[in-house]
């Protein structure tokens, strides 16, 4: 069905509105001077070299961001799987409570969760460690793989399960041969959602790291006090690319419209 021209115009305008700040940040990354101006003055790629090669502060921050994002996303998936499976199998009060607890941090203002985590790691002595941040992000983004895996489990074909049961497969065999392969794409989606959001997270990271090490978002926030610089814009460009690639992989692995809750008949 073709859209009315006014509808297409509205969508185009919305896309421009959404893209505008991103385009501006990306273009600013090309600035030759030390100040952020748009359009960029004497465009150069020097800032990219600074960010990825010559300035160890940024390189270290990028490394920290990547390690934290990958490990917290992996942990979140590993923890979300049994929870989602339990809810799907039995749907009893205990499993529902567990799922609700797991979704809590994502639903409430992150600044409050950050403050609470700060207190918790302070009391347990983990404040400022790598592990504290990884576990914190795991908790914060646990809800994402939990949701995608649950959607995946609900979409497992009942006929396959009945057939397996008729032929005498135990739940463990059914899990391995039928459920796992069918839910894998949704698991991957959950992983990428958690990874990308962890990569971009700021406020919880701020309270948990306690200035003992920094990630890219923290580093940017710290440099913010001296005004924005083009090197920070390079960081932004990197982030946008990582996000776009992550979600393209999600779309490739699974049916993105369905994952986002579109109707299934189309």
């Amino acid at each position, binding site marked *: 069905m073709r859209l009315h021209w006014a509808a297409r115009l509205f969508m185009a305008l919305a896309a421009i509105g*959404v893209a505008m700040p991103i385009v501006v940040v990306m273009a600013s990354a090309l600035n030759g001077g030390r100040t952020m101006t748009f359009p960029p003055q004497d465009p150069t790629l020097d800032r990219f070299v600074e960010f990825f090669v010559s300035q160890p502060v940024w390189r270290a921050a990028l490394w920290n961001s990547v390690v934290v994002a990958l490990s917290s996303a992996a942990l979140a998936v590993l923890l979300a799987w049994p929870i989602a499976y*339990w809810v799907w199998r039995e749907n009893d009060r205990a499993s529902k409570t567990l799922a609700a607890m797991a979704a809590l941090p994502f639903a409430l*203002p992150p600044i409050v969760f950050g403050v609470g985590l700060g*207190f918790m790691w302070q009391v347990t002595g983990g404040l400022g460690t790598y592990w504290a941040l990884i576990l*914190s992000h795991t908790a914060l983004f646990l809800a994402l793989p939990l949701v995608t895996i649950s959607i995946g489990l609900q979409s497992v074909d009942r006929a396959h399960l009945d057939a397996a049961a008729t032929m005498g497969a135990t739940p463990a065999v059914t899990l391995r041969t039928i459920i796992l392969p069918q839910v894998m794409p949704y698991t991957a989606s959950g992983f990428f959602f958690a990874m990308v959001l962890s990569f971009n997270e*700021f406020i919880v990271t701020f309270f948990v790291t306690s200035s003992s090490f920094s990630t890219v978002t923290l580093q*940017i926030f710290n440099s913010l006090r001296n005004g924005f610089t083009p090197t920070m814009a390079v960081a932004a460009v990197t982030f946008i690319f990582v*996000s776009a690639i992550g979600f393209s992989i999600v779309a490739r692995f699974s049916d993105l419209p369905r994952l986002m809750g579109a109707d299934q008949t189309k």
Partner: protein
Amino acid sequence: MSAPDADLARTFEGRPGRVGLSLQGVLRGLMMALVCLICVVPFGLILAVSLGHKVEGAAWVWGFEFSNYTRFFVGALWPEQWSDLYLQKLEYSLYYAVIAAVLAVLTAFPFTWFLTRLPRAAQARWLIFLLSTLSLSEVFVVMGWDILLSNKSGLPMVLRELGITDWAKGNGIFDWARANGLANPRDFKFKTSVFATVLTMAYLVWPYAVILLYPPLSRLDHSMVEAARTMGARPMQVMRTVILPTVRLPLIGATLLLFVLLLGVYVAVSVFADPAQQTIAISIYDEVRGATLNAPFGAAQSVILLLTAGAFLLLGQLILNRRAP
């Protein structure tokens, strides 16, 4: 899982007696404990710390007193003197969040409606684009709008170069803008202003708005729309009599959820809001890690923000669930 593992599992499954049950029980108990520790305990700790008090320097001790809460509602010098400084901050939190949430939903609604009319592959491309911007850190979004609204290379410059600034000076619009803090004597300026704050906040949640409205709009029964069209209803009539009534609840639910999400915004408010018009999130940050350093009082403010958020979230859940069977 290797073959011996499967055999092991079969042994357990085959004997629904003590061994299988207890192994499963232990695993589930461990999972409960872990999730409780990392997801729920932090919130409990905030409550516990909020009952303590600050001691010399930046340290604090446990306690059981409500002075932090009375300070929030009536000020530290009460009953001699009454101060509503923190209530005002809470008010600003609600004020920015409500305008930005409504703005985001109002603009995202028609967009999402058109999006669901597109072919599926096109929908997937739009969703990738939106998800990429959605995941974008608050820090970058603020950075982008900071440049877009800056005097040197942003909107004020564009308005000046196009002659709109001079035109506005001639007909009183400029004076109106100055009176509302949107201009300095020579130019329009948007930093710091409520306009810039709310605009950036609406931008932050706009992709969320689309994603929240996408399922209900996508599942809407199109035969109803077509039937109405066949019977001669005009597009606006269809919108008013068929579409809006069916998605009224999701619309309200989405607005509430975005509102809750926006209550905790930190970077956008700290950069774009006037120092006298800042929110409770800024205040929490200052108490816990910033300039004022009074962790128990920061914790008390967190509890109040949490209760506010929780109340609205519950309201949203009630509205959304009322429709489900």
